[in-house]
C-alpha cells in the first residue's frame, strides 16, 4: 500500500517532481563537474604553469653555499661542478614520473669580436632511452617555451652552431644565418632568441661545445628541473627545514608525496654533491594558483548545493501545502507524524536519486567540456566523487525538506478537514 501511494503520488505530482529532479540535476551536475575538475586539475594546472620554466635548480653543494651566502652564481664563482653522467638519473627517483623536463647548464666565456661574452652550454634537445626502457625527450627547448626565436632552435647535435641573445645580437649586428667566431673557432648562428631577461646577453651552445671550449668534459654547473609538485603544507614546510626532524610516519608520508621539498631531497640522493633548491617564486605561485583554483571549485560546489537545497525546499513545501488535505486525512486515519514524513521524504528521495543519477552523468560531461576547453585534455573521472555527490545529495534533500517536515508535523487534521 505504501509503495502504491508513493508511486501514484510520483506520477500524479510529476510536474513538481520533475521540477525537483531538474533542480537536483543542476546542482549535482555542477558539483560533479567541479569536484572532478578539482581533483583532476592539480596536474593540469601544474602542467599549464610549466610554461613559466623550471621550478627546481640543482647546483654543486659548494656553489649552492656561495649562492645562499652571497647570492653569487655562474661561471667563476667556484670550480666545483656536477657530473653530466648523473643528469639522466633524475628520472630514476621515486617521483621520476613527476620530473617533466630538465636540462643541464654549463656556463663559460669566450671572445666575440674582441669582447668577452658569456656562454651557456646545455641540451637544447635530448633524446635518450633510460635503463628502464623508457624513452626520454627533454632539453632546454621544453623549459623555455616563452622564448621568441628568429631562426631556429639548436638541435641535439648542433655542436658547430649557436643561438644568440637578442641584446647581444643587436649590439654586434648579428642575425640568424650569420657566422661568428668564438675564441678562434667559427660557429653558425642558427637563431636569435629573446628571453626578456639576463640570458639576452648570452650565447647558447650545446653542452659538448662549451665543455670543449672550457675544457670541462663531463661537467655541468647547474641542472634546471621542471617537476609536477603538490602545494606545500605544514608537513612539507617542516621537512624543508630539516627532514631529520620528522617522525618515521611523517617522513614516509612526506617522502611519498610530491612536495617540492621531497622531490629535491630525492634529487640530492641521485646527483652526487648536488643540492637541489626550489625556485621559490615559481613553486609558490603554482601552489597558490592551485589552492585558489581548488577553493573556487569548492565554493562553486557549496553555493550550488545551497542553491539546490533552497530550490528543493520551496518546491517540497509548495507540494506539501498543496497536499495538506490528503496528508491531514492520513493523520486522521491514524498515521503517525513519522509515517507521513517518511512518505514525503521517500518521494523526494526517489526523485532526488533519479535527478542525482542524471546530474552525475551530465556533470561528467561538463567536466570533460571544461577539460577540453581549458586544458585541452580529458579530465580523469574520480570514483570518490560518486560518494561525495551521494552524501551532498542526501544532505541537500534532507535539509531542503526540513521546512516541509516542520509544516507536516505541525499540521492538524482538524484544520485541513474542517477548515478550522
Amino acid at each position, binding site marked *: 500500500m*505504501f509503495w502504491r501511494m508513493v508511486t501514484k503520488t510520483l506520477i500524479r505530482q510529476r510536474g513538481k517532481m520533475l521540477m525537483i529532479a531538474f533542480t537536483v540535476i543542476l546542482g549535482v551536475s555542477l558539483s560533479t563537474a567541479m569536484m572532478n575538475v578539482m581533483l583532476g586539475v592539480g596536474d593540469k594546472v601544474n602542467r599549464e604553469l610549466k610554461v613559466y620554466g623550471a621550478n627546481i635548480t640543482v647546483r654543486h653543494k659548494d656553489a649552492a653555499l656561495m649562492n645562499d651566502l652571497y647570492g653569487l652564481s655562474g661561471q667563476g664563482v667556484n670550480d666545483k661542478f656536477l657530473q653530466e653522467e648523473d643528469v639522466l638519473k633524475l628520472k630514476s627517483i621515486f617521483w621520476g614520473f613527476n620530473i617533466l623536463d630538465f636540462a643541464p647548464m654549463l656556463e663559460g666565456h669566450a671572445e666575440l669580436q674582441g669582447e668577452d661574452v658569456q656562454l651557456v652550454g646545455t641540451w637544447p634537445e635530448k633524446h635518450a632511452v633510460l635503463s628502464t626502457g623508457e624513452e626520454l625527450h627533454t632539453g632546454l627547448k621544453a623549459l623555455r617555451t616563452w622564448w621568441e626565436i628568429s631562426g631556429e632552435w639548436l638541435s641535439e647535435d648542433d655542436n658547430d652552431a649557436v643561438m644568440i641573445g637578442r641584446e647581444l645580437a643587436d649590439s654586434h649586428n648579428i642575425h640568424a644565418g650569420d657566422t661568428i667566431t668564438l675564441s678562434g673557432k667559427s660557429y653558425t648562428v642558427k637563431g636569435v632568441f629573446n628571453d626578456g631577461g639576463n640570458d639576452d646577453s648570452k650565447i647558447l651552445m650545446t653542452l659538448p661545445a662549451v665543455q670543449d671550449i672550457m675544457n670541462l668534459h663531463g661537467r655541468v654547473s647547474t641542472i634546471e628541473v621542471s617537476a609536477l609538485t603538490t602545494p606545500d603544507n605544514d608537513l612539507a614546510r617542516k621537512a624543508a627545514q630539516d627532514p631529520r626532524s620528522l617522525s618515521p610516519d611523517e617522513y614516509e608520508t612526506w617522502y611519498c608525496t610530491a612536495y617540492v621539498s621531497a622531490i629535491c631531497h630525492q634529487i640530492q640522493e641521485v646527483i652526487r654533491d648536488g643540492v637541489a633548491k626550489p625556485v621559490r617564486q615559481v613553486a609558490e605561485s603554482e601552489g597558490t594558483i592551485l589552492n585558489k583554483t581548488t577553493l573556487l571549485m569548492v565554493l562553486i560546489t557549496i553555493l550550488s548545493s545551497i542553491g539546490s537545497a533552497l530550490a528543493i525546499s520551496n518546491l517540497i513545501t509548495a507540494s506539501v501545502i498543496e497536499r495538506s488535505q490528503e496528508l491531514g486525512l492520513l493523520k486522521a486515519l*491514524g498515521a503517525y507524524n513519522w509515517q507521513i514524513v517518511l512518505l514525503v521524504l521517500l518521494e523526494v528521495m526517489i526523485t532526488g536519486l533519479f535527478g542525482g543519477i542524471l546530474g552525475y552523468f551530465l556533470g561528467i560531461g561538463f567536466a570533460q567540456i571544461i577539460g577540453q576547453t581549458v586544458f585541452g585534455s580529458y579530465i580523469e573521472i574520480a570514483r570518490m566523487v560518486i560518494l561525495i555527490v551521494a552524501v551532498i545529495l542526501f544532505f541537500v534533500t534532507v535539509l531542503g525538506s526540513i521546512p516541509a517536515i516542520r509544516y507536516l508535523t505541525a499540521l*492538524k487534521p*482538524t484544520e485541513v478537514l*474542517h477548515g478550522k
Partner: protein
Amino acid sequence: MPILELNNVSKIYGNLKALADINLSVNAGDWLSIMGPSGSGKTTMINIIGCMDTPSTGSVILDGVDISKENASSLTRIRRDKIGLIFQQFHLISYLTAVENVMVAQYYHSMPDEEEALEALAKVGLADRARHLPAQLSGGEQQRVCIARALINSPQILLGDEPTGNLDEENEGIVVDIFRRLHDEGVTIIIVTHDPEVGDVAQRKIILEHGRVIDDIDQSATFGEALKLKSKESRA
C-alpha cells in the same frame, strides 16, 4: 455501560468559548445525533470525541480511558483503534481507487487486506465500483466509500460530521439506511448534522447552542417509525 463520557468539557479559543461545561454520556450501541446552528460547537465537540483535539478543561472518557490528558501520539493510536470518521467532504484520496482508499485505513491500522476491503465496499453496495477513482463516483458513492473506510477497522464509535450534508435526498436515504444496519449490528453512531430529518432518525438527539447543550431528546419512542419513513422517502 457508557462507552463515552464528557464531564464538564470546555474548549476555549482565545476569548471564544466554543464548548462550555458539556456533560454527556453515550452508551455502547447508541445512535446519537448532535444538532445546532453554525458556531454552536458541533464540530469542536466531534473533534474532541474523535481524538483530533483536546478539551481546555474537563475530561473525556472513551472506553474507560481519559483521553483529555493524552499526547498527540497516543490520541493518534486511540483514534486509529477506536474511531471511524466520516466527513461531509468525503476526503477520499483522488489518485487511489475506492478499494485502495479503504485499504489506506487498514494500512495505518494494521495490514492492508484487499479482500476485506472489497467486502466492506460490498456492504455499502459498491462491490462493482471498487476499482473506480473517486472522480468516477457520484457524491453518494463517494460517501459510501468513506463509510466503508470508517468501518474497515471495526471501530467502537462511528463519528460522522455532516455525513449527508453534500448528498441529494436519494443518497441521503441510502446512507441513513446503512447507518440503520450498522446500528442493528451494535455499532455506536454519533452524527453531527444540520438536517432535522437526519437528526430525527437517531435514537437520541442533543441540541447545542453557544457551546452548551440546551436540549437532550430521547427519540426512542419514534426511532423505528422515523427510520421507516426516511427509508420509504428514499425509495420513492
